[in-house]
């Protein structure tokens, strides 16, 4: 079963455990600056929103890459950067509409979320389940359940 990262900003507290987990998984250090998932703090509304690659089917980064350094991991659906092939031209960072693939000056390559090979460290680290890893065909399931509960209870009390 293909799975997707599911992000629910309502549950995010802004603790950055996800960013640390991502950096630790990929670089072996706790460095939010190296994370492929970022939490944005909109302080005027109090909203905290984690954001990362959605693994587009027609991935613009993949199509834009002139050296075919970005490939599909069939097992997870992730679009994965091959560091040995990447030449650091950054065309993919221009092509991505969402900004979720970025250049890393230290390595001279780009990086993006690769779903950690099917066990995303961010989702495991999230203490509030703001980030979960769920059936890719049923990312709407939680919201459906919430509406079903609401409408069902309205009927019951009517």
């Amino acid at each position, binding site marked *: 079963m293909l799975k997707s990262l599911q992000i629910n900003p309502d549950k995010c*507290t*802004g*603790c*950055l*455990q996800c960013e*640390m*987990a991502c*950096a*630790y998984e990929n*670089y*072996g*250090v*706790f*460095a*939010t*600056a*190296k994370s492929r998932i970022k939490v944005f703090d909109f*302080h*005027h*509304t*109090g*909203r*905290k929103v984690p954001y990362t690659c959605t693994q587009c089917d027609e991935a613009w980064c993949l199509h834009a890459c002139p050296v075919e350094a970005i490939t599909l991991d069939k097992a997870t659906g992730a679009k994965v950067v091959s560091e040995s092939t990447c030449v650091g031209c950054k065309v993919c960072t221009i092509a991505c509409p969402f900004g979720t693939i970025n250049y890393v000056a230290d390595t001279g390559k780009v990086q993006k979320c690769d779903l950690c090979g099917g066990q995303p460290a961010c989702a495991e*680290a999230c*203490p*509030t389940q703001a980030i979960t890893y769920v059936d890719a065909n049923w990312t709407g399931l939680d919201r459906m359940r919430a509406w079903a509960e609401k409408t069902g209870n309205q009927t019951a009390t009517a």
Partner: protein
Amino acid sequence: MAWARKILRVNLTKGTVASEPLRMDWAAQYLGSRGLASKYLAEEIDPKVDPLSSENKIIWATGPLTGTVASTGGRYVVVTKGPLTGAIACSNSGGYWGAELKMAGWDMVIFEGKSPKPVYLVIEDEKAELRDAAHLWGKTVWETEAAIKTSHQDPLVRISSIGGAGENQVLFAAVVNDLHRAAGRSGVGAVMGSKNLKAIAVRGTKGVGNLHNPKEFMRVTTEKKKILAENAVTGQGLPTYGTQVLMNVINEMGSLPTRNHRDVAFEGARDISAEAMAEPRKTDGKPHLVTNQACFGCTIACGRISKIDETHFTVQNRPQYWGASGGMEYEAAWALGAANGVRDLEALQFANLICNEHGMDPISFGATIGAVMELYDMGVLTKEQLGIDAKFGSAEALCHFAEITAKGEGFGKEIGLGSKRLCAKYGHPELSMSVKGQEFPAYDSRGIQGMGLAYATSNRGACHLRGYTVASEVLGIPVKTDPLSADGKPELVMAFQDATASFDSAGLCIFTSFAWSLADIQPQISAACGDEFTMDNLNAIGERIWNMERDFNNRAGFTSKDDTLPPRLLKEAAKEGPAKGLVNKLPEMLPKYYEIRGWDADGKLKADTRKRLGL
């Protein structure tokens, strides 16, 4: 090893910055953060220096677990000789700044001297430089953060700064980071201001690594996070209600100091409680509370983010206050509310916003207003002097005072001296509800006896964060003790004080101690720092830190006479509630406390105590 093993030393007089290795021999004895920075301060300054002179130093410090995946591992401290107290000051803050400093590769930054003109320090990993802050001087904390992020074209930079209160050397000025997290107490912001230092802006991209046993660290931090999640206080109470969960609890115990400690219960407590923050308002149908928020790495998330009522008299036509922002937590809600008899939640939040915006400790500010209102009630202070009718309960007066104190206008200059100096000036030193010049937090020690001893002996003046026996006396953590009895309290206070020193020095938040004991942080520290950090060692470190701080204060001129409480708490009995008829039994507790501490009758360390602790 978890430490970055590197210190940044900034000489503000000369305008120089230099890197030096961390004293690892001291790190082994004092761990980090509070303990280690206090050791540096005690070694480097004469304890008798004027806190606001160039001879004082001020240190921003992280702990070995700051910037790691350990829950709440985002704390930093500001350590200096405090101008409010004249004692050693160590104010602790969360948010994201501390972790950013550590991720830039620094354990601490030591500032010495005084800059001839306003400057701010910029740290980008190993690079550090002082820059001109003429354009920032006079700006609020909020404006300063925005201005630096804009001029650096870097929204990810983290900033620790002062507002007008620090610049004007309000004696309870705070250092604020991430808009509304504060190293709040003892006037550390005034020291920053006295040095013409406006802000420290940090970007850290290197990260924290180099752990002693990374695999074990990941395992044990995950295991300990589960304990926090499953605990009723850290897993439910704090995330849902914040520290404000205490307002009704403490009030019902008859231990909510009210109207400058004249009363021990507040008829308006419910109106300013966590429950009130969550209810829809009559005016706009929205609750005050918007959401909870975590600091860096914290899996508790007790922080409160609220929106003030836009129609409230304080913020009409002032949209800069309408957005979601930090507040209120319990101590602030108490100090701005019950301590003055004010029950208008929106007014308290406004005063709280002013404290954050301009960098001021809401506890000392609010408690000082309590004293002002009592002096007004007695006719010692008049409406002509104050510029407003300052009767107990006046939300207008509270909010007016907040603005003039932060801006150093009119009578605000006198409020900015704190209650001890203000009450002495007007002939009533007994009305300052403080110890060593620092105002009490939100627990009346007539109804929670251990807190009286904790306040009287706290190394930074009256404080709830140096030995929070409320946990035991009220909440039963780790064991329930009778809040009305003095029995066993010297031992309890000492145990809390020493354990807290270890928690603080690790770089963790003391709120974890509702669920964790020292035995829970020990394996996290040893996995990060080394196997030598055993329980015995951590117990010794805590006790060593406490005694080292005490020794600094003794050398600064403090004696056993300063380990006391205002006469109101020792002579005027609580008027109602479970503690009715009781005063604090400090005279019963203090001699025993000195004895178990290994101090002489003057409160000085005995020779064998020094020897035992390696001091």
